[in-house]
């Protein structure tokens, strides 16, 4: 990837920061998300909670659906391609989506390789559960990372675990001497130049959001206090009792994450949160976060 392309790809992610990216399945939801102050929308056919409930193979959305969402809103539109499905990614680029999510929420198309993201002009966001996975995605050309969490559960515990894991692995690198970084790179199976860069920056070299199980303003504010640059909310908004109010409240809590009074105010009168499912009750073969390598 050229230096200019990297600047443009990572630059758009900078513009999304401090914001909330919301899953939407039709134009009406896209407008509700934009009206609530979302910094982008993720266009898809089924939110993760429905993918989980209905089962079957989950694929890229219908281009007509993506077109309709692109024309419904003025904010950036993201869409998901299956892990390793580079033709779905080519289609999404052709449609003019602003960011492609190579996502474990869809059924993987390749159980070995991820998409070579460096050959695309449209930037990619990828999920990660730990530092090595994040750096492998960045090496493949991802311009933004989201910790995976466990999508479609409304249970924030996995999002918490993945963000804490990434953050603590970054801190551990910072404590190593330069000659120890070679082995550290080998141990986490990540390129040495990125390991060295992370050790000196004290953070990932790209914007880092949190995803998977965020359902309340308090969940969003907690992730921001832990150092996330922003949050993805999938099923948490449109599977709740009052999506308009909840979407606005999560945006408010993400901006004022370090002001408990503001988060308390944002948490009032939202109706029912999504019912959700405890991650512990999801059998291991049905855990989406384990997809990706």
């Amino acid at each position, binding site marked *: 990837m050229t230096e200019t392309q990297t600047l*443009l790809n990572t630059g758009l992610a900078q513009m999304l*920061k401090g914001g909330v990216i919301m899953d939407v399945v039709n134009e009406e939801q896209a407008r509700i998300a934009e009206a609530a102050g979302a910094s982008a929308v993720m266009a898809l056919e089924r939110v993760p909670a429905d993918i989980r409930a209905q089962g079957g193979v989950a694929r890229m959305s219908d281009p007509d659906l993506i077109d309709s969402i692109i024309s419904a809103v003025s904010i950036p539109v993201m869409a998901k391609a299956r892990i390793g499905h580079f033709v779905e990614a080519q289609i999404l680029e052709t449609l003019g989506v602003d960011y492609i999510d190579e996502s474990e929420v869809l059924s993987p198309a390749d159980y070995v390789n991820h998409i070579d993201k460096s050959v695309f002009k449209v930037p990619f966001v990828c999920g990660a559960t730990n530092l090595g996975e994040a750096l492998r995605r960045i090496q493949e050309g991802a311009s933004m990372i989201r910790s995976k969490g466990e999508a479609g559960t409304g249970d924030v515990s996995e999002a918490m675990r993945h963000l804490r894991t990434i953050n603590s692995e970054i801190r551990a690198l910072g404590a190593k001497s330069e000659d120890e970084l070679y082995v550290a790179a080998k141990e986490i199976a990540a390129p040495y130049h990125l390991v060295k860069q992370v050790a000196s920056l004290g953070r990932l070299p790209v914007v880092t959001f949190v995803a998977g199980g965020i359902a309340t303003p308090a969940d969003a504010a907690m992730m921001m206090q832990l150092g996330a640059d922003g949050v993805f909310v999938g099923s948490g908004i449109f599977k709740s009792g009052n999506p308009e109010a909840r979407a606005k409240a999560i945006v408010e809590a993400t*901006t004022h994450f370090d002001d408990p009074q503001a988060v308390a105010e944002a948490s009032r009168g939202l109706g029912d949160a999504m019912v959700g499912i405890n991650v512990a009750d999801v059998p291991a073969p049905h855990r989406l976060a384990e997809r990706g390598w």
Partner: protein
Amino acid sequence: MRVGVLALQGAFREHLLMLGSLGVDTLKVTRSKHLADLDALVLPGGESTAMVRIASGTDLFATLRERMAGGLPVFGTCAGLILLADRLSDDSLGGYDRLGGLDVTVARNAYGRQRESFTAPLTVRGLDEPVEGTFIRAPQILELGPDTEVLSRHDDVPVLVRQGSVWGASFHPELGTDGRIHAEFLHHLGAAV
């Protein structure tokens, strides 16, 4: 000198780092009370739709307009330019309160979607060497009022303008490591940076 950066959403951290590297004190601005002791304010890139909605229902923009009327210098980049424009070419912000104060008409996303984002060398009045401008889903300045000066153009279209101490850019001087545009803004205010 203390310069605030509006931090409702977007690339405020990059502006804070850039201003810090030029040696001025910085402050994140999310509430009207943060405006009290500022010498200047930067409005960052991000999503203008998100910013106007987060600000709605608070006294932040009304207080800021009062400060601007009293002479507070403000520099808006990308989404920040949209907040400062006296006129927008469409109603995609849905009638939400903006700031105004810069006599220009701006079209949101007029340079296209992300695949049309680009960089270009810009000749900037007052600078000897060109600046590499980064345009990301950028707004375009369509019309200028009589008191608005153009400091830089790209393909004949103004991309950096000022009206008194209110500055607007359709690109992102906060991305990368070149602090000369920020320094020009601060010099204009009389800062020794």
